[in-house]
């Protein structure tokens, strides 16, 4: 791509994001341009169109095209108990403290297809806290939320989920929490009773509940600093005093506006759990 093409592509990105905001009320304008460019180039290549402005035409007139574009812009392929050290630290360090509250509210922000949500539910069940916990699982992508809510995962991913579960300090077997269905597994309805799935945007929506733990891993990396500050501001507003925020292993609050409002706890490499001071 020569520099003139590159400038035109940036201009087309701007136009597309404005158009999506006006027509679909979804705001991607403060997403980090580095990843956004790559994702839109991929979406364009898959669409068969030559220019983003051509794709924009279809995205505006056909909701199906927008749905497909959303998969490129938001969906993260994750695993259950991904980064086991994080879940181990939740189990050993965070949940014992949360258990002192009469009821526990956890917000999984940007939950995508729900791998982490169901991991959290399994964790709470095994620690005997599920019945008095509520997990808020939010995302801006309705298709991802629908999949998350179904709690169905293909069989070929289960082996990996199970080994992560064990590495994260699982107390039994992951299969204690699901049964076989169709070509995959479906998690127990008992877990689902404690989960609320909801459409919520860190870019445009407000706080909706007081919570004790926000888990938002590898979501903020796709935001620029301004939008990260907005999202972390929501977390701060939502959290009880001394409440926790769990981030991805190389995400940090130290470069943002709210650095002084949080302190890092549990000095473990690759585990980023902060608490509100």
């Amino acid at each position, binding site marked *: *791509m*020569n*520099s003139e093409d*590159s400038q035109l592509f940036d201009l087309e990105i701007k136009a597309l994001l404005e158009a999506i905001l006006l027509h679909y009320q979804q705001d991607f304008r403060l997403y*980090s*341009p*580095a*990843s956004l*460019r*790559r*994702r839109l180039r991929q979406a364009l290549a898959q669409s068969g169109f030559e220019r983003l402005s051509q794709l924009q035409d279809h995205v505006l007139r056909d909701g199906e095209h927008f749905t497909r574009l959303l998969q490129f812009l938001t969906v*993260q*392929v994750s695993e259950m108990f991904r980064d086991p050290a994080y879940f181990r630290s939740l189990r050993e360090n965070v949940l014992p403290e949360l258990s002192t509250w009469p009821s526990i509210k956890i917000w999984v922000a940007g939950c995508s297809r729900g791998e982490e949500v169901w991991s959290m539910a399994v964790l709470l069940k095994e620690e005997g806290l599920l019945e008095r916990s509520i997990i808020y699982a939010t995302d801006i992508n309705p298709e991802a939320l629908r999949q998350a809510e179904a709690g169905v995962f293909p069989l070929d991913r289960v082996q990996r989920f199970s080994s992560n579960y064990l590495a994260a300090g699982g107390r039994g077997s992951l299969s204690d929490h699901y049964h076989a269905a169709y070509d995959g597994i479906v998690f127990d309805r008992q877990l689902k009773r404690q989960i609320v799935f909801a459409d919520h945007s860190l870019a445009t929506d407000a706080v909706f509940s007081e919570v004790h733990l926000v888990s938002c891993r*590898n979501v*903020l*990396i*796709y935001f*620029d*600093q301004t939008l*990260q500050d907005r999202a972390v501001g929501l977390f701060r507003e939502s959290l009880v005093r001394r409440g926790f925020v769990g981030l*991805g*292993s*190389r*995400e*940090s609050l*130290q*470069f*943002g506006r709210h650095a002084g409002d949080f302190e890092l706890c549990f000095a473990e*490499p690759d585990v980023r759990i902060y608490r509100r001071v």
Partner: protein
Amino acid sequence: MNRWPDVDAVLVGASAGGVDALLKLCAALPADFPVPLLLVLHRPASGGSLAPLLASRCALPLSDAWDKQPLRAGEVLLAPADYHMLVAPGPCIALSRDAPLNWSRPAIDPLFESATDVFGARLLGVILTGANTDGALGARALRQAGGELWVQNPKQAIVPTMPQAALDLAGADLAPGIEEIGHLLGNGKWR
């Protein structure tokens, strides 16, 4: 004073055989290196950090990068395991967990392409030893934007595939051996 008035950052990509090459390169950097240096080395997701080993041979501060970390002159940032490392306006680091490229995360192309978007011609890119073709597309983008590209001489690389792929697709301004690359970087007298 910046001895390299035309360069805002140096990018280095390495794969198979890269630990050895990067150790030599890091050892050659002087403490007053005038620009940020960004390293991508292919490695397994669970491999742990290579930063302590590389830092032990390097006169400059060297660490795994954080998301949104500002780039600073004389600091060496390494792409962390299981993340792509990109450059965003600021300039700062933008990490990504998007799918692996060429079976690698971190991959070299996202760094070279995103840095080119931010710095244009004001870049020096270096492609070292490796067993796949990652980095070739990024090297081409960097060169097309007017940046300077060095590719390790494939005959002197531990594994020639990656530098050869970069040479085939992008060409190069220089194709030196690793010792010479370290020497040139250390002296900053190549323009």
